[in-house]
């Protein structure tokens, strides 16, 4: 069933964000965004047992100039865009306080925007803009889309100034994945700390993993595999990719 939530309702739900934004001092290049991820069944019968069906997860996105930190549970990834536009990735394993460094690679703008904004501009702009409104200092846009063939419905509330997802809901065949912005962090010290604490982790070059069979952390990683989904882009509370299918 197509689920439509009005712009008015959404703006009410995220009013706390508006308060934070009213200072009008937020900078899209220096912020932290905490999200709550919820997976749930949306049909009436299952909803009675929502506690059994829902999955919650906290995630956060941090930006500090040309650096982006994506935190997903105890795994996180830092991306740094070099002056020559190469992007260097470092995967962090917070529980072990260890990091794996990857070689800097060239990256498309779409891919960089997906990391930095969770959704590239080209993808967002292909969605149907169903409303736009200034709230405080910032323009908020509501996008909606549906794909009847795959029984998929989606809506995105977007902060156009901060280039930040406020709310994202994708419903398909009774399953709903929902991203909800819980808090925006403006404190530069807190933001810097999020990056700095991971810089102190012991690092291993990806190419050296095979030569370090005696390292307990690397053995675990070799046997279990490295971070997969959830390091960038939009994924659900189980770490699975959330495909934004839609009709053009």
């Amino acid at each position, binding site marked *: 069933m197509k689920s439509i939530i009005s712009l008015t309702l959404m703006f009410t739900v995220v009013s706390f964000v508006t308060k934070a934004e009213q200072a009008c001092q937020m900078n899209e290049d220096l912020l932290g965004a905490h999200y709550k991820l919820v997976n749930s069944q949306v049909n009436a019968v299952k909803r009675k047992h929502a506690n059994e069906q829902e999955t919650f997860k906290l995630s956060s996105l941090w930006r500090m100039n040309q650096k982006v930190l994506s935190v997903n549970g105890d795994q996180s990834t830092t991306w740094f865009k070099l002056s*020559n536009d190469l992007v260097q*990735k470092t995967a962090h394993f917070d529980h072990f306080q260890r990091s794996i460094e990857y070689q*800097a690679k060239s990256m498309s703008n779409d891919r960089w925007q997906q990391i930095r904004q969770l959704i590239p501009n080209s993808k967002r702009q292909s969605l149907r803009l169903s409303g736009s409104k200034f709230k405080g200092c910032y323009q908020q846009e509501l996008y909606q889309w549906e794909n009847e063939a795959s029984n998929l419905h989606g809506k995105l509330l977007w902060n156009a100034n901060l280039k930040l997802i406020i709310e994202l809901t994708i419903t398909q065949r009774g399953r709903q994945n929902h991203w909800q912005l819980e808090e925006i962090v403006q404190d530069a010290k807190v933001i810097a700390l999020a990056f700095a604490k991971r810089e102190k982790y012991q690092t291993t070059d990806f*190419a050296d993993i*095979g030569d370090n069979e005696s390292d307990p952390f690397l053995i675990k990683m*070799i046997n279990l*595999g*490295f971070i997969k989904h959830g390091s960038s882009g939009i994924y659900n509370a189980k770490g699975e990719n959330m495909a934004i299918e839609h009709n053009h």
Partner: protein
Amino acid sequence: MKNFKNSVVAIAVVCSLAACEDGENGAVGANGANGKISLISQTTLPLGNEFCKNGGIAVGSGIDSNDDGNLSNDEVTITNYVCADTVKTLSSDSLATSVTNDWFKQGENSIKTAEVNWQRADAIKDLRGKAKNVILFVGDGMGVSTITAARILEGQRKGMLGEENSLSFEKFPFSGFAKTYNVDAQTPDSAGTMTAMMSGIKTDAGVLGVDEDIQRGDCTSVTGNEMTTALELAEIAGKSTGIISTARITHATPAAAYAKSAERNWEDISDMPSEAVAQGCEDIASQLVNFEANLEARMTGVDVDGIDVVMGGGRRHFLPKDAAFNSIDAESEKEGDRSDGRDLTAEWQAKYTDGNFVIDQAGFDAITPATTTRLLGLFNESHMRYEADRENDVAGEPSLSEMTSKAIDILDNNEKGFFLTVESGRIDHAHHAGNAYNALNDTIEFAKAVQMAIDSTNPEDTLIIVTADHSHVFTIAGYPKRGNPILGKVVGVGKTEASLAKDGMPYTTLGYTNGRGYQNLGAETDADATYELDIAAGRVDLSNVDTTAAGFHQEALVPRSSETHAGEDVAVFASGPGAYLVTGTNEQSLIFHVMNYAAGLTVND
């Protein structure tokens, strides 16, 4: 076999003795009849005779019973045979089909070459010290299957079928095998194996320049267990010394030439536990810069001038973790990793004011070997690029062959000679990533570097050894026809379509026993791109996949995040004075002793 049947010549002498009584002699009796004569006859036997396959003579004997003076066949009672010897050698005419065959001629030429080589070796009555220069080439992870596959790929790139090609070092006159195991490991790592080659002893996995009494990771166990390396002995002998690697210069293989460490991963101080730092252990990068002082402190009375040529990757371990120290070649926010604030590149330049420090291709190209006395080249923040990926480097990097050539041109300015070790470090990394293309391509570049060394030195005074530290689980399988693309899918003899496995899908000649498995990354020249993708071990339908592309990663059986080393022996190739000491199957540590003996680095009481 000669078959003699000795005849018994029967001569019958009839003598009757009558009893005599005393009295007058009787009348002379009548002459008796003549006795029969025994004769022998000789008959030449043709080839193929029943009794003599190669011909010969039949010797008949018997009584000439009819007294005709001839021994007829019916008078022969015994026949002996003197057979012609079997054919021991054949004329060229008889061997026409063999001697005109190209493979046959090639083999005969190889024997002539070997004969000359051994005559030369035998002519040197006292080999000790005859090698003025020593160059040790190490292909990291370059097992025998890697050499074979690289040989074929290089040949096919030349337009040959491929299999008949030889890499430069495969033409060396002497070769043998090295057993690679570490003291505590059946399948070894580079730290233990390179320590064996550089120090002449086998030791544990993961440790550098120390013997097996070490406790890996225990700083306090280093003291008293340090070994002296061939490079250090060459320094003490007054020779020039050099180290080249396409890996970080602080990585295990190059570091085994100069460092003493309980842990190969202590590449800079930020990699070390604070306890080890407090106990006085020095990180590997610092040991490289302080090599001269450290050696002089360890060896009483020694006066050395430090390592003359150092080239490789690994700037991160020499620079502070501070963006202010980033080079133009930086590939991360803060290029340096050092947490102690030291800039070792500055320390090196202050220590060696006559030295040249370079970080890129332009700086490398500007070096004039004839006037350069000392060179430190750190061309990448981490490992240098794969040869196929070099063009993607930000500031440009020299190739292994370029570095080798330039290093020799600098080092050979010393009339006392030089010691140089050259590592192709990324063969190993490509295998770990399950990417045969880069492993083989870097092996071919490695062979080119060896050729540069051959061309730049005199075989009469330069010992060149080429080997690997260990192998990989890399296989050449199936029954592909001759000349089948080595990176391709198996196409059987006489066939034009790919062979199918029991699962109905084609398969590649090259593969891995374990690792990350299949990826089809097209033209991607960085083998490590696969680390950002999911593991995909097991079978994949390759029907529409170009398996010869740089970005193709071979299938693997056992899923792992990284393909592993293998434990079989590796090949050792040698040329120059003392090269003939490389023969048979030996412990890997023998390589040090060959270099030591040939160059006379230590006095043998």
